[in-house]
């Protein structure tokens, strides 16, 4: 059973793509808990919503390609600008003038778009384990990304991040990838949850979403980060095996934000250390009231 039911569940449709959203609570300000990569849907915020909704208004939506939202086929549908436009559409539909944005991982890209291009709609931004391309990824990851659409026989490790492998054995990829998300001991439940959510979408959608980010170069994202003027909090685990800690540190520096390092944490700390993350989010939101 869910800890708290949504006060409003509805959807918005843009260019024929329908995105499903939910609203919880009534207090001010509003927090938009942004989608991450379409591998998971909005249930990954389940540890945050009940607490934050007691203090604020919380909006969540299933990112296109995940959960109850549509799964358009074209890569162009998965650009950062499209995700950002979905967020604005949800804010418009709920008459939300301004909000604090909370993102995880790849959600950092949509959040940066909003902060930089729509500063009048953003009170502040929290980036958890931000998936920003500021620090060179490990060499093995670079090689793997270059071979994303090649056929790799019996892929090992990050070689499983591969379009053909996803189509051949999607579950194998999911189990590998989610395993990398949780480097903390004793994370079985968080692991099972993320695997289940990932299995609700499909390889074709994820492949499209992969190509959708082609324009997210370090230069382009760096330009967005440089335009951010709102208060920023970056939270990054020291043991994040998906997006390394220096990327978060760099984002904090570029946005004049505060960096909180979680010693021993992996890539999804909001599910693994929900209490600390909830308290950090609350502390940050209170600070934006000034």
């Amino acid at each position, binding site marked *: 059973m869910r800890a708290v039911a949504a006060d409003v569940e509805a959807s918005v449709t843009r260019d024929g793509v329908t995105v499903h959203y939910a609203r919880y609570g009534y207090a001010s300000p509003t927090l938009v808990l942004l989608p991450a990569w379409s591998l998971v849907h909005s249930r990954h915020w389940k540890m945050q919503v009940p607490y934050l909704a007691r203090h604020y208004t919380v909006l969540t939506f299933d990112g296109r390609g995940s959960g109850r939202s549509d799964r358009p086929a074209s890569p162009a549908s998965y650009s950062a600008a499209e995700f950002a436009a979905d967020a604005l559409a949800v804010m418009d539909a709920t008459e939300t003038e301004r909000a604090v944005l909370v993102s995880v991982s790849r959600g950092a890209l949509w959040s940066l778009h909003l902060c930089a291009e729509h500063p009048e709609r953003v009170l502040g931004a929290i980036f958890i384990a931000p998936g920003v391309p500021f620090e060179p990824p490990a060499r093995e990851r670079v090689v793997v990304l270059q071979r994303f659409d090649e056929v790799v026989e019996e892929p090992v490790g990050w070689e499983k991040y591969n379009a053909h492998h996803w189509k051949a054995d999607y579950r194998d990829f999911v189990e590998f990838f989610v395993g990398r998300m949780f480097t*903390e*001991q004793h994370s079985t439940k968080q692991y099972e949850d993320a695997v289940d959510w990932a299995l609700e979408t499909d390889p074709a959608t994820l492949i499209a979403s992969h190509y959708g980010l082609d324009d997210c170069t370090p230069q382009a994202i760096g330009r967005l980060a440089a335009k951010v003027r709102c*208060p920023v*909090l970056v939270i990054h685990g020291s043991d994040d095996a998906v997006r390394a800690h220096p990327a978060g540190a760099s984002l904090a520096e570029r946005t004049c934000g*505060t*960096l*909180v*390092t*979680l*010693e*021993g*944490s992996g890539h999804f700390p909001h599910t693994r*250390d929900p209490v*600390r993350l909830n308290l950090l989010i609350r*502390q*940050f939101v*209170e*600070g*934006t*009231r*000034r």
Partner: protein
Amino acid sequence: MRARQPDRADVVERKGVKVAYEVVGTGEPGLLLIPAAPISHARSWKGLVPFLSRHFTVVTVDPRGNGPSDRPAGRAAYGPDEMLADQLAVLDAVGLTRAIVVAHCHAVPWALRLAAEHADRVWGVVAIAPAVALAPRDGHWAEPTERWADEVDNPTGWGLCNRHFWRQDYPAWPRFFFDQLLPEPHSTKQYEDAVSWALETDPETMIAEREGRDAPKDRHAAEALCRSVRCPTLVIHGTDDRCQPVARGQRLAELTGGDLVVLEGAGHLPQGREPVKVNRLVKAFVDRIEGEPMRRQVWTRSLRRPKRALYLSSPIGLGHARRDVAVVKELKRLRPELEVDWLAQHPVTSVLEAEGERIHPASAWLANESAHIASEACEHDLHCFQALRRMDEILVANFMVFQEVVEEGLYDLVIGDEAWDVDHFWHENPELKRGDHVWLTDFVGYLPMPDGGEHEAFLTADYNAEMIEHIARYPRIRDSAIFVGNPDDIVPDTFGADLPNIRDWTETHFSFSGYITGFTPPDPDEVPAVRAELGYRDDEQVCVVAVGGSGVGRALLEKVIAAYPLAKRLVPELRMVVVAGPRIDPGSLPSHPGLEVHGYVNRLYRHLSVCDLAVAQGGLTTTMELAAAKRPFLYFPLRHHFEQTFHVRHRLDRYGAGRCMDYATSDPDLIAAAVGDHIGEAVAYRDVETEGAAQAARLIAELL
């Protein structure tokens, strides 16, 4: 001594009337603290200023009529317009454009007007026990209100609030009034403070202010004032406030849309009686208005954290530093993975630095307790019970530092060797406890000095009773309590009339580690080698004179130095070595040819353990080091020092160690003769245990 000196103290002058203010810190916003003058003055904020000024600029003002401010004559000088103009003049003088005003009792209407008429400058108001006529006062105010100006014969109780009576016997009013306003048990210090501040003004000033106050008298006018306030407000009000009923605070919060914090069981002076709670409420209020800044930080997942302890060593003198280092060494033997930080101040830090221990950087925020103790001492006289009472604001200031350290530091364990602030304020604010808590002490029970009479006996019993009640009500605050010594070391007294026997109670509530010397004295056959290493020859009679680390020993040093020429005549082989300690400048002491004077000597115990005679104060550490090393020694308990006079002497008598000397009646002749009598003599003391540190460490390690 104050816990925090102001950065700036100045006056503003309006129409020939000077109003004093003090500033700590710079930057905006600033807090403006307004006391209910003239019956009180700015020192009534002493429990708040040190803590709040670490986070914000703090301005305290002495409204006209008391403190260093003028006491103009005539009621017109005390009208609300004058008071408002004074506060504005102070804000201007400080250059504060954004203030959060904290006001008490009848200063609250001034603060509300300031907020209403200068909304651009006042960003928030904290109203403590507000005197705003939003609800009727308690019935006991009817008579004094009605008959204020009448000539009443022999008024009593609340009737003492009478113009004519104040002119006859003003001091009787604050004595009655503050007794009523502090209904909380164990409030003797707050009562003494409040009365003494009230007595710094005079009846004519009190009468003029009361008659000129002109605050909104009826409910409608008071409500209109409250409704005109637009900024955030916080109301703090005790349920047992006999000056202002809590209904007034409740209504003020309603009308201003503010937050209300009701302090159940508190009287009219929570800033004095509950300083920790009020500090935290004020800071949280300002943080809500300003937004608490996020700081760069590291949070470590729970299973990743190393085990960590925070050690607090009683900072008065050097007494406990050596034994605490010894306990930590043993503890690390038992729990090698344990990390220990020290929250410590000078002179304890001099020992810790020499030992390579890790001193927490927040130690720099601590107000110095040794300096306070030195400021309380005069010629070989230290009333240590009263000195501890007068250290109240330093204890609050240091507790607030400590609490911030434990809230951020993720400590598993707090070890306090006579860390009075931690033990007291965790019992007073049990919801603040973090980590397990080990309490160490080498004495239990405040004892009155005979010349303090009945009142001092009442005060010590009251302090003891509060401690006993604390531990009965909150046994979870001390996870382990260790008495550094043995049951036989405990004095055969009671905690006071109708209170338990000290030994019975202590045996029930403590474990016993045995004495902790912090070092192993040399065996008799090792003594010559140590003497040789320290440069003491066999044909010399070495007399070491030491007074510990607190700086109160100067008078004794001078007296013993004066006895040196006589003693040298009596004992030609005499070599006298005077150790001034870390807080007395050795160059400032008198000198004689042949006399050696040193400052701080690291490992002084090695010198003491091989000397032929020592002269010391009655402090436990030095005398027990001498007892353990089986050296003859003379000791002079500080006058009015109950611990040295009773607790230490009892313990030394049990070991059969040392000769107790009276400072006042010992002239240089007598001291020289005593040196001659005892130097080099063989002694037959009871053995001092050597396993104390290991035993204490075992008791502590059980918690890890």
